[in-house]
């Protein structure tokens, strides 16, 4: 709790800066309007107007909060204007992709740890692939899968899976190799086979690494789902909200969708954090 005060101070500073930016960026429009009408405006009027424009350059924090609140509670959950509806579309793609990517990543990591040839040939590519802007292929995946008749949730999930796949591979390989020689030797003195070593030593030892990379990969798979919604005129999802907002200059809609995405990401990371703490505590790994 001791760190709460500094965090709140920083957040307050950010909000204050934001309000200042709102006035600074939106004042131009107000001045233009006033000049067209041939009236002088005082500074107080400029500030008041900057806070309440319909399509501001930078919406004020309370406008974004209002947009977010309206989007969440103002419409029926099934309505296309409800942010809950769009968030749920994005979330389902994220989760499907996350599960696929994580399972595939764990399987590949197990293969890499147990097979030398796989380690030497696949691992360098797994690392190199992290340096490649994979997100750039998102539009192509969507269009290609649509042209073979796969539409809807699955194409986005494929991108999510691909993005969440590599952090898991790299983290799990590290984790499965985490037991040191002493522990491996001990299991050998027990006459434990490869399989027993895997289930009783390697897998439990890899859990902290797994959760660390799960946090990275769930955030990555949300980004993948959002970017997957950008091309090809997707009509639902937070990415589609961003795109339509940017087409029609609805800045408040963009910011509201952005904050919805941020809250979603924070929530997902937090859920994994809770599961992590529970699991590690039951395994006796929390210090």
């Amino acid at each position: 709790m001791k760190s709460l005060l500094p965090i709140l101070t920083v957040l307050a500073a950010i909000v204050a800066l934001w309000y200042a930016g709102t006035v600074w960026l939106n004042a131009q429009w107000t001045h233009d309007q006033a000049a067209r009408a041939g009236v002088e405006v005082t500074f107080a009027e400029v500030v008041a107007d900057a806070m309440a424009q319909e399509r501001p350059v930078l919406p004020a924090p309370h406008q974004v909060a209002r947009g977010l609140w309206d989007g969440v509670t103002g419409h029926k959950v099934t309505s296309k204007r409800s942010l809950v509806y769009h968030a749920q579309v994005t979330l389902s793609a994220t989760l499907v992709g996350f599960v696929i990517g994580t399972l595939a990543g764990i399987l590949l990591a197990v293969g890499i740890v147990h097979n030398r040839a796989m380690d030497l040939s696949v691992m360098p590519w797994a690392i190199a692939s992290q340096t490649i802007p994979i997100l750039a292929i998102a539009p192509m995946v969507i269009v290609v899968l649509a042209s073979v008749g796969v539409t809807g949730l699955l194409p986005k999930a494929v991108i999510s899976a691909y993005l969440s796949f590599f952090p898991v591979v790299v983290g799990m390989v590290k984790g499965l190799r985490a037991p040191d020689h002493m522990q491996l030797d001990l299991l050998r003195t027990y006459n434990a086979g490869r399989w027993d070593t895997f289930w009783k030593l390697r897998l439990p030892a890899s859990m902290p690494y797994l959760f660390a990379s799960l946090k990275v990969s769930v955030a990555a798979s949300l980004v993948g789902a959002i970017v997957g919604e950008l091309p090809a005129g997707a009509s639902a999802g937070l990415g589609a909200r961003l795109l339509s907002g940017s087409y029609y200059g609805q800045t408040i809609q963009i910011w509201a969708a952005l904050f919805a995405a941020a809250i979603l990401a924070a929530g997902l990371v937090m859920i994994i954090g809770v599961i992590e703490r529970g699991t590690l505590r039951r395994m006796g790994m929390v210090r």
Partner: protein
Amino acid sequence: MSWLWGAILFWLAAWAFNVWLANRAVARRQAVRLFIPALFGVTLLVLWEGTVRGLGVPGVILPAPSAIWATILASLPILAGDFVQTILKGALSGYLIGCGAAVATAIAIDRSPFLKAGLLPVGNFVAALPIVGIAPILVMWFGFDWQSKAAVVVVMVFFPVLVNTVAGLGAAERMQRDLMATWGAGYWQTLFKLRLPAAMPFIFNGLKIATTLALIGAIVAEFFGSPIRGMGFRISTAVGQLALDMVWAEIAVAALAGSAFYGLVALIEKSVTFWHPSQRARS
């Protein structure tokens, strides 16, 4: 069909060879360690080519590697123009500004434990958010040209580098700082002679993460509007025309540029942090 079977046969043979090679003593040699993944990469390409030709996959779904290579050779000027627009102008300038600002900010807040305690959790939090989403806003503010892409990149790379730099500035040990104090070194002298060098492994960790983010930011920002050149623009329009060989050509360039960018930063890291155990162990 012979293409497909040939490719599968080649795959099996190369895999068997890799397995044989990996379990020999020569696998410890540097050259062999490079050869095995290279052979694996080649088999993937051969399998791809064989599958596309053997099953007659149409080019609008998956072009063969040979077709992509032909497109790359045929459209070198376009690719070079896109490379300059997206990588050099958008990503690189944004990367330099963002990383510079992040390191400067880290040094600025370093003297105040209060700010550090407040900014670090916020920075960690923001680093996990889908920051790509601010691309439409920044495109609206800074126009369609490379400036808006650079702005997106600045925001994307800022927080990972900031968090890593702040962690790095705390890396110098108490004993070492006390030694500096006994020599009568001031704050800035300690910073430049001890703490910044000690922070370099951490800073470079952040810089390496930021290379990928920079390319992603520059390319994705172009999906929201761009002049008629740039890799993101080319990808989204080529997808619209179902010219997938062009898309793959751009992806090949992006992958190459990403790896080269990362490699460059890793090379600089090697020469700057030559003293660190992780670098000494390899040579």
